[in-house]
């Protein structure tokens, strides 16, 4: 036993620490799913529909099946008895089409799986897939959700000729009164176009069947390994504990890997039938066509206000393009938009009507922000439009309507309770950063010289830390296990499934501080259902804000046990625990965590009512969501000759509560802003009238590249949430949510002297050039 020499350890929380994940990533030694090679492994390729809507007259697999190296070809009828791809969204009256693993008698979108070919290597499998002959009777398709709702539109699913999957209504406050008392009502149609999530790693999986054990191992590129395990076991009729799902290194998700896809079940089914390990890797072209898309809104807003700018009520009609099927959460996403409609404002009345529409397109589902960017974009555009109508400064109008600091916890018109906030703080900080008053003067000067300079802003709120279980489809808690090994090293197993967010580092920081152990001694494991206790996964800015507190409470439980062993070793009832040492208050003597671990596992002697070992598991159920917020300001200049937008400044001030690792937080904000600017300026999934995806490659789908991005000046205000003991709120989606309205605000502001009030995204140079031309010459070039 050591004499007391307790030095306060340097805290790790709050430090810009480089990541533990990185050594394997920067040396090319990480293992992504396509890096797996198993003995006897075969390769699966999916044959897909080239049509948006067609009847399958026949499928001829003879030529493919006869090719050397081909082991199996399956078509729709071979999987007709298997369960459907699950939809986890439950809305009253929701129409759920039968989503079979392979098309039966019809195809509903370009890319719809029709057959699967399995061969000894990927080149042969691709050749054989080309040799599968499908005879189609092409039918009329519909890709535009508003056209799909029009009378006489082609029916995506013949049994539902109105193409309506569901309708949803929510109302709060007294909307009739709000509009009756209004001095001014502004209206605008606002779209949030379909986007393609595009993680750099496409989907992919490797399935392995262990016949003797009747068990399946699936390595799959997913954000939710445990959910995949539960759903897959149900679909395939396997015991859940005999299905092991592993998320190896995952190359990005952004929501599109928060799902159970047909190919994961199909690959598993083939592995079981063939008794060989099967690898399926999605090509980029397939990723564009068949992995879920995001957004897909056409919204009609009306905002009622007093002439002093007080917002009284918000009405919105949301048309959600659902695509042809429901994936896991698709129909639930626009209901999240509805919850977020009031934004950061005090407006007490709201009314929303959602219609979910079937189209002959790939399903939409969660994409970074999932419903909240659409809502924030809408309300922020409307506040700008209202400011223009009232000839008020848009910042002043926002400051006037923000929920006030003394009003928290604040019940919203949509039934949420905003946890905490100081909504003016990030806006004021962003305005100071750009020197807003001076900037407006510069703008006035620039306008005199004919320059189209714009200052745009957004003040956004978010629903994060998904979430209280009653408000989620599959449980919203998270789990953590903390083990102190006999040597004193610490292993953390978290139920979240990081794929770029850096929790191996941030959770090590939390553990180092709260357990009082060296940062280097902590190993964080995740993503393998055979290793980690049941968990929910990584999405909805929840990993640190729900998984972090679970870890915190597991550590607290473990400390209780550590103190029992410490008391036994120190022969005292009065011991404290800090910095990895138990200390006796009376004698001042202490024992280290290493000595305690040794004693706990050697178990020569045990404290009363205490079992050997040092392990604690905690499942933490949050009592509320968290509600991060922030303000973004973009300054831009538009070239009237080309319509090109030059971003002069981009300032992002986010309040995500306490920062565990500011370096990682900055990375999340930068990446989020890039995806938000991507939507605002360049990206759009374009389907033509035949429901062909014409932006189906990186050549045509304009993701931001390095030279297109501005330097992002990021900063923070810190308002810790009372919802969890770490005071953290989540930051994964913040940048995306704040960026698109700020960008549109800036460009509209630049063009406002021409009478422009709103522009729909993406604001491509061509669109801006045509707009300028029409406003200046009346020409519709």
């Amino acid at each position, binding site marked *: 036993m050591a004499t007391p020499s307790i030095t306060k350890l340097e805290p790790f929380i709050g430090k810009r620490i*480089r*990541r533990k*994940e*990185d*050594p*394997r*990533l*920067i*040396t*090319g*030694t*990480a*293992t*992504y799913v*396509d*890096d797996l*090679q198993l003995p006897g492994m075969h390769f699966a390729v999916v044959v897909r529909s080239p049509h948006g809507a067609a009847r399958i007259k026949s499928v001829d697999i003879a030529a493919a099946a006869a090719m050397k190296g081909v082991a199996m070809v399956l078509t729709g009828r071979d999987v007709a008895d298997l369960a459907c791809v699950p939809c986890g969204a439950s809305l009253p009256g929701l129409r759920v089409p039968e989503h079979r693993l392979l098309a039966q008698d019809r195809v509903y979108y370009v890319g719809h799986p029709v057959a699967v070919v399995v061969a000894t290597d*990927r*080149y042969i499998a691709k050749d054989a897939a080309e040799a599968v002959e499908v005879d189609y009777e092409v039918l009329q398709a519909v890709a535009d959700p508003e056209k799909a709702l029009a009378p006489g539109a082609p029916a995506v699913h013949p049994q539902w000729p109105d193409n309506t999957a569901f309708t949803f209504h929510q109302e709060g406050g007294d909307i009739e009164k709000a509009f009756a008392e209004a001095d001014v009502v502004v209206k605008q149609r606002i779209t949030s176009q379909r986007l393609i999530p*595009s*993680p*750099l*790693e*496409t989907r992919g999986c490797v399935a392995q069947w262990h016949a003797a054990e009747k068990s399946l191992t699936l390595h799959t590129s997913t954000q939710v390994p445990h959910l995949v395990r539960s759903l897959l076991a149900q679909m395939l009729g396997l015991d859940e504990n005999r299905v092991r799902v592993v998320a190896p*290194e*995952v*190359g*990005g998700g*952004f929501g599109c890997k928060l799902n159970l896809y047909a190919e994961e079940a199909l690959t598993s089914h083939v592995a079981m039938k063939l008794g060989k390990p099967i690898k399926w*890797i999605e*090509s*980029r072209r397939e990723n564009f066509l068949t992995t879920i898309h995001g957004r897909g809104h056409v919204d009609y807003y009306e905002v009622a206000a007093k002439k002093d700018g007080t917002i009284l009520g918000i009405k919105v009609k949301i048309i959600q393009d659902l695509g042809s099927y429901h994936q896991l959460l698709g129909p639930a996403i626009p209901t999240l938009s509805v919850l977020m409609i009031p934004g950061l404002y005090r407006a007490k009345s709201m009314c929303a009507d959602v219609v979910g529409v079937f189209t002959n397109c790939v399903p939409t589902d969660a994409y970074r922000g999932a419903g909240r960017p659409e809502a924030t974009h809408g309300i922020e555009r409307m506040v700008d439009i209202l400011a223009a109508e009232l000839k008020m400064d848009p910042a002043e109008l926002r400051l006037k309507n923000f929920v006030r600091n003394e009003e928290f916890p604040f019940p919203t018109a949509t039934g949420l309770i905003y946890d905490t906030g100081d909504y003016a703080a990030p806006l004021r900080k962003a305005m100071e950063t750009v020197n807003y008053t001076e900037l407006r003067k510069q703008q006035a000067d620039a306008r005199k010289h004919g320059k189209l300079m714009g200052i745009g802003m957004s003040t956004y709120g978010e629903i994060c830390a998904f979430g209280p279980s009653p408000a989620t489809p599959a449980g919203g808690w998270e789990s953590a296990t903390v083990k102190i090994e006999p040597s004193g090293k610490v292993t953390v197993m978290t139920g979240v499934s990081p*794929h*770029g*967010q*850096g929790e191996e580092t941030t959770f090590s920081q939390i553990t180092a501080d709260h357990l009082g152990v060296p940062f280097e001694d902590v190993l964080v494991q995740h993503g393998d259902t055979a290793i980690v206790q049941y968990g929910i996964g990584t999405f909805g800015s929840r990993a640190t804000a729900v998984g972090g507190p679970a870890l915190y409470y597991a550590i607290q439980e473990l400390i209780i046990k550590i103190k029992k062993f410490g008391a036994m070793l120190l022969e005292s009832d009065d011991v404290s625990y800090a910095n990895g040492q138990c200390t006796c208050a009376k004698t001042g003597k202490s024992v280290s965590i290493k000595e305690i671990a040794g004693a706990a596992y050697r178990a020569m002697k045990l404290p009363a009512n205490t079992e050997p070992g040092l392990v604690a598991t905690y499942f933490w159920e949050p009592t509320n969501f968290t509600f991060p917020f922030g303000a973004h300001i973009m300054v831009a200049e538009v070239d009237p000759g080309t319509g090109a937008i030059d971003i002069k400044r981009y300032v992002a001030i986010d309040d995500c509560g306490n920062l565990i690792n500011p*370096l*990682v937080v*900055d*990375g999340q904000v*930068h*990446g*989020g*802003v*890039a*995806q938000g600017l991507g939507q605002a300026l360049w990206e759009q999934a374009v389907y033509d009238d035949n429901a062909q995806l014409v932006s189906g*490659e*990186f*050549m045509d789908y304009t*993701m*931001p*590249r*390095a*030279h297109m*991005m501005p*330097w*992002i000046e990021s900063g923070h205000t810190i308002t810790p949430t009372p919802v969890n003991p770490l005071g953290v709120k989540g930051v994964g989606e913040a*940048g995306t949510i704040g960026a698109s309205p700020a960008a549109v605000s800036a460009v509209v502001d630049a063009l406002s002297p021409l009478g422009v009030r709103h522009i729909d995204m993406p604001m491509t140079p061509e669109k801006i050039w045509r707009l300028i031309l029409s406003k200046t010459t009346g020409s519709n070039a």
Partner: protein
Amino acid sequence: MTVTITVNGTQHTHSVEPRLLLIHYLREHLSLTGSHIGCETSLCGACTVELNGKAVKSCSIFAVQCNGAQVTTIEGLATGDRLHRVQEAFWNEHGAQCGFCTPGMVMVSKQILDRNPDPTEAEIRHGLEGNLCRCTGYQHIVKAVQAAARVRA
């Protein structure tokens, strides 16, 4: 066809299909899985390697075209435990998130500095233009290249 290619200093001879892509040769014949396949159309750059000292996208070149060539992949950059300055800078500056684009980004960043030891921010961004990243917004990658430039080799 038979090809002889020197990869990361080791000479390999294999009989390969004429249509075998260099990326598949590296990943499946040599088990060098650090270079990734992000698009197979030369648009994302996740497969970037050095061919005779020049950065190329290995998804868009056949293995047989590389007969007699020297190839360096991400696995060949570090010297023992000592990381290349670009790798070290990516680590220090948080240039990687999910890591899938990272090997290609590191290879192209090395190329940028090989051609121009002291690039401006605009020159760095121009040099990174052929490589896509969906996670970082590029800012920390730009900072990593700037940091590596300051270190010099």
